[in-house]
């Protein structure tokens, strides 16, 4: 038998950053295939939220304007699902750091950012699967998109853009924490208030005024309001509403850019520090 090592070395042609990222995405997606329960957070859990709110609480919540609660609810749930991208990215990254996979990848002649880019893309795919499940569930219980194709697409685009910002938050948290359990605990403690103190499930008008003010400044509210308007699932904010809710599309973009500007440098710094030694 001729041995591999006695033959001359194979040509090493390290892939470009994008190709390497794509390979890492391939690997991350195998994880989902092997462990479909990883998807529970964005599928079964979100469907349960839809059903709970639509049928249990829905009757007692009155959305403004002539809109059914189910239509009002769906954009909010989708935004909530996309926020969990940060937890998904964080848990994946911490796991790879903890198990030494990041070390293995760092010992290869590939761009170091491909680990993060690959992780970001697979996390976005992960939560997009959740968004798709939400959309189907919504359609089944009576949610409809009532505006033009362009506006529909813009709505989903805003959600994805926000997911991009959330990934940086995820990489930041994932680089700081030592165990997946810690990430999970931390993220869920932060994410739930963030998604509830907003117009996600109920209009902010009925909240105490201080809480309503917080909710109006919550990026989640602007994004949810934007999707409601773009998809025809809610009325435009009244003229006495907060300014940011009267310009929800603009504000959604601004929030996503601002959050990225804050968390991207923090995340890169923390990741570099964590993976330097």
């Amino acid at each position, binding site marked *: 038998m001729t*041995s591999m090592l006695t033959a001359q070395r*194979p040509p090493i042609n390290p892939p470009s950053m994008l190709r390497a990222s794509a390979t890492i995405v391939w*690997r991350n997606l195998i994880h989902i295939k092997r462990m479909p329960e990883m998807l529970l957070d964005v599928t079964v859990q979100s469907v349960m939220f839809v059903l709970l709110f639509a049928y249990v609480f829905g009757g007692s919540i009155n959305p403004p304007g002539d809109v059914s609660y189910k239509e009002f609810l769906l954009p909010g749930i989708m935004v909530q699902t996309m926020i969990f991208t940060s937890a998904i990215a964080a848990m994946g990254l911490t796991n790879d750091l903890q*198990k030494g996979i990041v070390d*293995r990848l*760092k*010992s290869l002649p590939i761009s170091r950012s491909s680990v993060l880019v690959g992780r970001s893309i697979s996390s976005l795919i992960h939560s997009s699967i959740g968004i798709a499940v939400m959309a189907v569930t919504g359609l089944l219980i009576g949610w409809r998109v009532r505006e033009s194709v362009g506006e529909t697409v813009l709505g989903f685009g805003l959600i994805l853009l926000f997911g991009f910002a959330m990934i940086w938050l995820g990489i930041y948290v994932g680089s700081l924490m030592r165990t997946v359990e810690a990430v999970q605990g931390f993220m869920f403690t932060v994410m739930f208030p963030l998604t509830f103190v907003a117009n996600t499930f109920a209009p902010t008008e009925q909240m105490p005024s201080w809480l309503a003010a917080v909710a109006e400044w919550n990026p989640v509210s602007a994004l949810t309001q934007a999707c409601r308007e773009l998809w025809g699932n809610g009325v435009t904010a009244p003229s006495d509403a907060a300014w940011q809710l009267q310009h929800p599309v603009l504000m959604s973009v601004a929030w996503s850019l601002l959050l990225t500007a804050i968390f991207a440098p923090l995340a890169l710094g923390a990741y570099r520090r964590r993976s330097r030694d």
Partner: protein
Amino acid sequence: MTSPAVEAIDLVKRFGENTAVDGVSFVVPEGTVLGLLGPNGAGKTTTTRMLTTLSVPTSGTARVAGHDVVKEADAVRRSMGLAGQAATVDELLTARENLKLIGRLYGLPKTYVRSSIGELLERFDLVQAADRPVKTYSGGMRRRLDLAVSLMAAPPVLFLDEPTTGLDPRSRTELWEVLRELVREGTTLVLTTQYLEEADHLADDIIVIDKGRVIAAGTPTQLKDQAGAASVVVTLTHAADLERAEGLVRDHSPEVHVDVTARRITAQADGLGDMSRIGAAFQEAGIEVDDLGLKRPSLDDVFLHLTGHRADHDGAEGEPSETDELEEALR
């Protein structure tokens, strides 16, 4: 002109106050095996991480396959393979997928990846399990896969951090055989270990490090000579035979120590020959023994010897560190 496969010059790594590696230098000629030997916390892993570009030295330099580990990190990564102390294979992927992942990330030709995966699976006895997720593997299988992964691009220089820790004796011997084969084929090997026996089996040269410093270097034979000779240890059945037995042993060995309460005699010896001669003499004299054995110098002995030696030179050291306690435990 051939440059050495690996060259470390005065490597230092500090973590805050803690100096993990404190001026380590060595040269590994192409095609040879260097064993980095040391107790827990000696700085073996930290040294390996600096040489494999995972960690940036606080000071000092190192070259692997002629490339600087800091300034030409990418070239170093093309020339070496690494199997770290903890297996870094993906639990949810199969062995085949793990190998494919790394092959793709090196950008190796598809046909090469395919044939080389087959060969590596064969070589590391993983053909049966090749399509099962790694999380179903035993510790030994994971180690073997980790090693296979590090060989994916047939690197000329291979770094192994405690490759046989946690393996049963049979797997260990099998792995040694594979490693020797790689070296025969021309691979340069740098391996860390806590076992003198392992370094003895595989290494051409050994460097003993302790608290981040090289405290001894040489061939396995030189080191063992420093640590003292082997000894025969015999435990008698009857205490009454002690005196007679001691006399017999003295005929064969210049240095004899008697432990009366344990009915044990320890004698310096040069190997199996001495042991069997002493055994025969006992049998002839009708002295019954519970146990008769040969004790080779172990890492403990090497350390006892080396650190004891050092203490003579600089007795006034700072406060005890973690490694001091570990060393204490070793004794």
